[in-house]
């Protein structure tokens, strides 16, 4: 065999094989990311720029770096920001309290019914949420059974006492808005929690019991810490859209419950004060970005998507 011996010199010469640069990922990314850049990043910049412009719809807008817009907008609407955050925060906490037992039950205790329950949780998510929110009007309506029950058990009085409702009615109140918000975002909390709890090794719970932990201790010391990634995911998915929502407060609230989303909507489409509207949008975006950034810092970007 003359092969290998004669080839010793060329083998040394060919030496290390070069790794060819792989262009595939860039080509795959191109259309999708281009879309995101053009229709997400650029509009955000445009929004920022709009917030610093002055003018009107009729006379046109000029970029004047007019920061006063921000000051005015904030001083006029800071109660709405605060309210949105409080409502969204309350709804998020309530959603967590409600979603956790269901998610845990589905993940750990439901056995054969697991998929059936999953279907029941996901299916409402696919139906028009406007229609479902309207249904809350029907549920909480003054002449309906729910309101009657609440009145007779004095729940209405209790809610009125903490200023969540007024006029002996459940509808058109803070209570109704928070109810709606909680309801609308339940699946967003249930699913991440469920995904996390499904992977929870049940033998850990058994081990805790074996080591003298009561059910409550087992929950706090074992289950809760392990479910935190799901909790954080669900919290983000709930709080962020809730903060910007206005459909619930429009359909179920009153003039006292106006949230920042409604303000932005009306400033854009009715008042047509684009600069103020843009400034408000930007501040809302900023608040959200700060919250997400804190989360990213702790979890890394691979966990986001």
């Amino acid at each position: 065999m003359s092969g290998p011996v004669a080839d010793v010199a060329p083998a040394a010469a060919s030496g290390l094989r070069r790794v060819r640069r792989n262009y595939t990922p860039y080509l795959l990314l191109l259309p999708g990311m281009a879309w995101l850049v053009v229709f997400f990043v650029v509009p955000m910049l445009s929004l920022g720029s709009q917030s610093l412009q002055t003018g009107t719809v009729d006379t046109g807008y000029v970029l004047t770096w007019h920061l006063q817009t921000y000051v005015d907008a904030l001083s006029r609407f800071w109660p709405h920001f605060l309210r949105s955050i409080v409502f969204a925060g309350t709804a998020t906490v309530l959603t967590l309290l409600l979603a956790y037992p269901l998610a845990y039950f589905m993940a750990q205790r439901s056995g054969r019914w697991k998929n059936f329950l999953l279907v029941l949780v996901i299916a409402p998510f696919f139906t028009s949420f406007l229609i479902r929110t309207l249904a809350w009007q029907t549920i909480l309506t003054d002449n309906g059974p729910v309101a009657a029950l609440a009145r007779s058990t004095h729940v209405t009085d209790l809610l009125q006492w903490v200023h969540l409702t007024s006029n002996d009615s459940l509808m058109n109140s803070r209570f109704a808005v928070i109810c709606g918000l909680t309801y609308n975002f339940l699946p967003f909390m249930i699913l991440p929690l469920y995904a996390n709890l499904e992977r929870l090794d049940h033998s850990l719970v058994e081990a805790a019991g074996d080591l003298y932990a009561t059910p409550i201790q087992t929950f706090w010391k074992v289950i809760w810490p392990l479910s935190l990634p799901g909790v954080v995911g669900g919290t983000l998915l709930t709080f962020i859209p809730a903060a910007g929502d206005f459909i619930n407060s429009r359909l179920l609230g009153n003039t006292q419950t106006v949230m920042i989303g409604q303000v932005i909507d009306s400033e854009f489409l009715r008042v047509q004060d684009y600069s103020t509207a843009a400034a408000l949008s930007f501040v809302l975006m900023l608040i959200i970005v700060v919250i997400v950034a804190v989360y990213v810092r702790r979890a890394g970007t691979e966990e986001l998507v």
Partner: protein
Amino acid sequence: MTEETSGDLRLTGVTKTYDSFTAVDQLDLVIPRGSFFALLGPSGCGKTTTLRMVAGLDQPTIGQIWIGDRDITETKAYQRNVNTVFQSYALFPHLSILDNVAFGLRRRKVSDHKAKAMEALELVQLAHIAKKKPGQLSGGMQQRVALARAIVNRPDVLLLDEPLGALDLKLRRQMQIELKQIQSEVGLTFVHVTHDQEEAMTMADTIAVMNSGRLEQVGDPATLYEHPKSTFVANFLGQSNLLEATVTSRAGTTAELDVHGVNLRLPVDRLADGTSALWLGVRPEKLRLVGPTDGGGADDNRLTGVVTDASFTGLATNYLVRLPWGQELMVVQQNDGSLPAARGAQVTLGWAAEHGFALDADQDAHAGAQDQADDSGAT
């Protein structure tokens, strides 16, 4: 698919480095056509990396791979006439068993792929489950399907990446025999990668022992076992007792050695020229407990010690005997009816001089030794 260029598999100077880590170091190996060849070594020794380079799934940093006179180093995996039985079987879950086995044939546009695939399934006795999906099969059945899927293409070289690792002991032994039979029936070159030395010795015609990316020794099982060239091979294949010795004389055919004051013998042809210090090796099964009246032949070696442990395993009794200088020797006494010695008993060990072997004194006496714990197959 018979091709004119089938021949021996040759690796010349094959090296694979990752950043600062060298997985395979200047490997030169010839694997004869039609043989059952084993690449044996502990995890991390580079055997799987070598296998992947032959399959084309990794590229060597330096070096070449040949089949016959064809240099296949640059050919892509899907163009090589080499097929692999993966450790995890890697059966396509969305295809039926028949479609799995026919996969390679269809890529190569073979006309009667269905018939050939059924033939291969019959070879592994699984023709009756052709319509099922991989998820419905047990581990042993999946393993045989993976084998059929590779064999049906009649490759120049068939690579097996620790295929029996996930099977339980009984099934593994059964598959070892089956694989050997199939190989001789079909006549393909099999290259089997494993860390189980007993498996390698059972199945392979030739074994290459690898350690840290290099070849320690290549040869047939008996030669490797009885005449190891390094402490690594001596300890990795089965177990060895290694005694520090110095040469006192080389008269005639027998060399005289001094081991901690005791005179022992070794055939002189085992010693390299000019050696003065060495490790004298003897396998545990070659040692026997001798009675006080057993004088033995002239070439018998004798050592006295105290039994520190005696384990009855059914087939044999494993002893640990402590010698006067503190070293413990492993002794395996076959269960032939002779009375066992108790712990604490004073015993004399004997073995024939020709059962000893010599290794370089500057080698590490513990190289290749595995824990007692994972010594499931070692006698």
